[in-house]
């Protein structure tokens, strides 16, 4: 099957700035694909190149097998939902939504009929005559969505479409976007810097940093088996225990302690053992045997209702431990010497690369 979008060695430079650095990426037809990364990492630039709003400096870009490198945006079977919505302020909702169809040469009545349907799809029926300025942020967002979807694009590009919404509306829209995507069966390429959003919504995620593509995989892949230090740290919370590889199943931590951890890195490589807070446990010192553990002192505890998060000071760093709030869970006062332990399979070794 040909990929919906295929990027091969795509590079984009603005003068001296390398916004996107030799990215290879294939987005499948019908998948919900998230692009995740910190601000300025090149997400928008990548999206704009797929849309045709920027052209790559180098590399090849295909949409359903057709090379589109320097094809203008109006000749590509993709549509964009802009971060700022970019609704036409001088047109009402109906004319905004009908714009794409009109430009493709549809008659006014045909364009209007489809637009009314699209407006219903995003649950704005009855608001056709409103001007964009008379709508809330969430409603404008839906108009932008309808305006793109009405064209039945083969790929829909969304640049942080939920960025401007408050938490509740955001969660509501997340569900709705996912529902729409499944209903329509088209690929959504969804840019966000909210990792939780990416994890809950996507079929696959691409993690970017400083113009480079670090990892592509399912949410589970990326959370469980991050490719490197950056990904481990960026996706979810984690404790990175610095150390060096001793052999394929042992890492020597910075304090000299040896812990069991599988890795395929060369002996002597400096790595970090990624220990997620929810996989770490806390116990009175000396009560842990056999299992890998490090000793420290409780610094403070934060009560979250459904869990308690302990910060434990080790000799050389601090780690976070999250204990579910189960009945009978043992409490550890600040200042108590404790051991932080985990199951051998709970950690993941990451390197710089």
């Amino acid at each position: 099957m040909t990929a919906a979008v295929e990027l091969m060695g795509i590079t984009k430079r603005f003068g001296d700035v390398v916004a996107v650095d030799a990215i290879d990426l294939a987005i499948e037809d019908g998948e919900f694909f998230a692009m995740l990364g910190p601000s300025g990492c090149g997400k928008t630039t990548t999206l704009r190149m797929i849309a045709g709003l920027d052209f790559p400096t180098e590399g090849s870009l295909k949409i359903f097998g057709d090379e589109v490198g320097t094809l203008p945006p109006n000749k590509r079977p993709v549509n964009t939902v802009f971060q700022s919505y970019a609704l036409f302020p001088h047109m009402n909702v109906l004319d905004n939504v009908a714009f794409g169809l009109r430009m493709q040469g549809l008659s006014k009545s045909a364009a209007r009929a489809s637009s009314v349907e699209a407006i219903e799809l995003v649950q704005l029926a009855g608001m056709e005559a409103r001007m964009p300025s008379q709508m809330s942020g969430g409603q404008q967002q839906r108009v932008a969505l309808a305006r793109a979807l009405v064209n039945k694009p083969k790929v829909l590009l969304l640049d942080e479409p939920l960025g401007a919404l408050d938490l509740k509306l955001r969660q509501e829209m997340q569900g709705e976007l996912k529902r729409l995507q499944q209903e329509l069966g088209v690929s959504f390429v969804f840019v966000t810097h909210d990792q939780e959003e990416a994890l809950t919504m996507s079929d696959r995620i691409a993690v970017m940093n400083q113009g480079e593509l670090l990892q592509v995989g399912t949410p589970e892949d990326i959370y469980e088996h991050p490719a490197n230090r950056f990904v481990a740290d960026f996706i979810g919370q984690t404790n990175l225990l610095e150390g060096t590889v001793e052999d394929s199943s042992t890492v020597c931590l910075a304090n000299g302690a040896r812990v069991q951890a599988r890795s395929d890195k060369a002996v002597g490589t400096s790595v970090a053992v990624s220990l997620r807070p929810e996989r770490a446990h806390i116990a009175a010192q000396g009560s842990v045997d056999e299992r890998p553990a490090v000793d420290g002192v409780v610094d403070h505890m934060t009560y979250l209702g459904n869990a308690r998060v302990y910060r434990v000071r080790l000799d050389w760093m601090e780690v976070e431990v999250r204990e579910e709030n189960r009945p009978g869970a043992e409490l550890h006062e600040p200042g108590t010497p404790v051991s932080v332990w985990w199951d051998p399979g709970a950690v993941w070794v990451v390197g710089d690369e």
Partner: protein
Amino acid sequence: MTDSVRTQTSQRVLGLHAVFVYVFFYAPILILVVFSFSGDRLVGRWGGFTFDWYGEFLDNEQLTAFHDGAIWTSLKVAAVSTVIAVVLGTLAALSLERFRFRGQRVFDALLYLPIIIPDVTMGIMMLIFFSEAITFADTYLGFEFAKGLKTVVISHIAFNISFVSVVVRARLAGMDSRLEEAAMDLYATRWQTFAHVTFPQILPGVLGGALLALTLSLDDVVVTQFAAGPGATTLPVFVFSLIRRGVTPMINAVSVVMLVASLLLIALMLLADGLRSVADKSS
């Protein structure tokens, strides 16, 4: 306590200031209007109410003759130069705001020149330019043209382009260029993008620029005098020449008519401004 005294004093001073401003602004206008209805031949001496000066103004062939009267000349020059200046000025604004090209900085700076150089300099430049151009056309191109209405129109276009492009550019700069990207993403060609998105967005600026150009053209004396030839006397130039020949209250009548016309233009401008703020509110 002292604070409120201070605010009271400053309010009084401000109030007085406002009164002075209004007196200086409007007293001359009032006097002009009043004496345009005065029956005495001497400007500034009240001689009973009369419409005579307006009658004389209407009967004056040089002013009101269809086609070559000063009023018609002014209107023709203003209309033609405004239309051309609006088209060229808008294009200049678009090229400066939306494209990058070689020599852009220089073009940008040169575009402001007509706004900052004094009218007299501009007039003399026009005078020399046209006389050179006439000689050149005559000796090398083999056709004759003389100073007249055309040269006045050209000179008005020359300074109006700058004003129009400045106004339109301000509007363009304030417009979200992502709107244009959105249009292209929605299958609009460059031209369709301009027609359906860019132009409606900058329309208030274009209208404002047009009204400004119209006013400037109708007002201009200095440049026009240098560029004009026989048979191309505009209204302000005619008024100016009347004064040299000796002032009669007919000048008052002419001036009142010009004043009313200007007020109408200003009213139109305010209307365009209203449109602009409506467009802004919706963006």
